[in-house]
């Protein structure tokens, strides 16, 4: 009985989590324009999508902004994480709190405050401010993926490298960096995902007609739901899912490998 209840409960949760997305995906292949009616399978909306100039421009913006923001935030975040790691415990925990706060902060607050900042600095809202905002909210994710890798590091590794004749700089590039590279890489992917996914902060900090995909979806939806939106959202969903899988896969694989290895 309890087993039955447990299963139903899990089933309901999964249902509410995934049915909307499933509907979205199904309707993106629906030949009928009206929602709720299945008019047969078609790829028409996907074809239309790639003929739409506005959408293609938004796609390019999203990719360029995503890659730029991910690259910059990875660099800043990784250096920041290394700095944090070398701090004393008390300082580190305090600063970590400050770094994590923006992630918990409501996006709308982040968006509005960034907008205020740009206006106060007389920065014209547009491509640049969009990139800056994305860099800002991506940094904590990078720090969070790099820091655990640093903590896992044997604290004697840099000393061992110096002992064998490496200068501190050589020790960093030959020993520390290769070891935390997986963390840096997953930080990059995570930042890219967050950037591609973002709507709220982008909405508040863009201007001059610079639109990314999520803003384009929003404006299209305001003008009336077009099945193209379903197709576009499906693509975004699949891409984001793929990126997240890429971020988590190495970890999962390692855990499995560990579990299957006999205890030492």
């Amino acid at each position, binding site marked *: 009985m309890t087993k039955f209840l447990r299963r139903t409960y899990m089933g309901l949760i999964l249902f509410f989590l995934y049915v909307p997305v499933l509907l979205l995906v199904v309707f993106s292949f629906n030949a009928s324009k009206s929602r709720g009616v299945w008019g047969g399978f078609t790829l028409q909306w996907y074809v239309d999508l790639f003929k739409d100039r506005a959408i293609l421009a938004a796609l390019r913006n999203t990719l360029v902004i995503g890659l730029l923001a991910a690259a910059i935030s990875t660099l800043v975040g990784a250096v920041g994480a290394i700095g944090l790691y070398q701090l004393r415990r008390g300082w580190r925990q305090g600063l970590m709190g400050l770094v994590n706060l923006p992630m918990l902060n409501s996006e709308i607050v982040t968006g509005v405050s960034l907008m205020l900042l740009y206006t106060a600095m007389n920065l014209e809202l547009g491509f640049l401010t969009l990139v800056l905002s994305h860099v800002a909210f991506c940094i904590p994710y990078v720090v969070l993926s790099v820091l655990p890798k640093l903590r896992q590091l*044997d604290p004697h590794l840099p*000393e061992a490298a*110096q*002992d*064998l*004749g*490496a*200068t501190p700089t050589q020790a960093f590039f030959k020993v520390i960096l290769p070891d935390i590279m997986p963390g840096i890489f997953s930080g990059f992917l995570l930042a890219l995902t967050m950037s591609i996914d973002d709507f709220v902060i982008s909405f508040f900090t863009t201007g001059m007609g610079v639109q990314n995909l999520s803003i384009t979806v929003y404006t299209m939806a305001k003008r009336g739901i077009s099945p193209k939106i379903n197709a576009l959202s499906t693509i975004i969903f699949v891409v984001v899912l793929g990126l997240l899988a890429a971020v988590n896969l190495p970890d999962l694989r390692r855990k499995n490998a560990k579990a299957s290895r006999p205890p*030492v």
Partner: protein
Amino acid sequence: MSEHLIELKDLTMVFEDGYTALDGINLSLNRNEFLTLLGPSGCGKTTTLRLVGGFAAPTSGDVLYMGKSIVHLPPYKRNINTVFQRYALFPHMNVAQNIAFGPDLRRQDKRETARQVADMLALVGLRGFEKRAVASLSGGQQQRVAIARALINKPAVLLLDEPLGALDLKLRKEMQVELKRIQVESGITFLYVTHDQEEALTMSDTVVVMRGGQVQQVGTPQDIYNEPVNAFVADFIGESNILAGTMIADRRAFFLGHPFECVDSGFGEDAPVDVVLRPEDVKLKSVDAPIPGAPRGVVISTLFKGVHYEMRVSVGADELLVHSTHAREPGTPVQITVAPSDIQIMRKSDMSPDAPARAEEAALPISDERM
């Protein structure tokens, strides 16, 4: 001109929190010597090694290498290599890459390096392990790789910080023999750290017993075992009986409520002393044939220890630890004799019986906090 390879002069280390970890250490290390720092946990062994390796700078004092101060040289400019307690192998490199780390930094010819790596692997008994991932190696094998990685640089001195601490007893014994062989074959000077007295005595040319940041005694293993300078060393180096006593006159000591003939002199009359008796030197005799002047006692417990029996014998207010191949039932009355040359007399010091931390307690393995 100095005949010493390494000299530590009045080395003092006071940490930021005001804790004095080293309090005026003076030591010298000769070429080809196997010198071991031995002492309980927290006595400053690792700190001493770190100062020699260059990973920390002393508060005062000097480290000399062939007579020249190296105290301001960073680790990468010292001709000294270290085997770290947890090996600190580079996890993203295979065995060969780990060992070749030093030569590669020096941009040594690749073929020459490959040949040396093979030689090193042969020396540490890991022939053909070049391509293995370090994570796939057992503790003992990682240990050997760490040694090879250090030795390939032909250091003047190899520092080893409890390198066998993480291994099980059997492997530890094997590696002790192995390490000694490697030291003799490579001709490299070893500065070794352990808190295992048996390990120190079996491997070393010279043992340095430390306590609370100070050197207690320096000597050959035989010196340290047979002639400990104080009760702390005696207690730490092996199980022993340390009894409070008095020197009645030269070559006459009083303890266990009886006068004993001994070989020590020069303590003055009625001087309070500590008397050290090794458990194997205390002889138990049956009371059937009374021996004049021999204290009497009763066996309290008997334990078989594989080669010998370990017995506790109560003598008046004292209790003696006795090792013998001949077992006696608990409750048996016995007479006690000790040969004069087996009685070790030491001046009473602040390191007297109840003061020192027990060696066994200090030697408890430290659990691994990481992982």
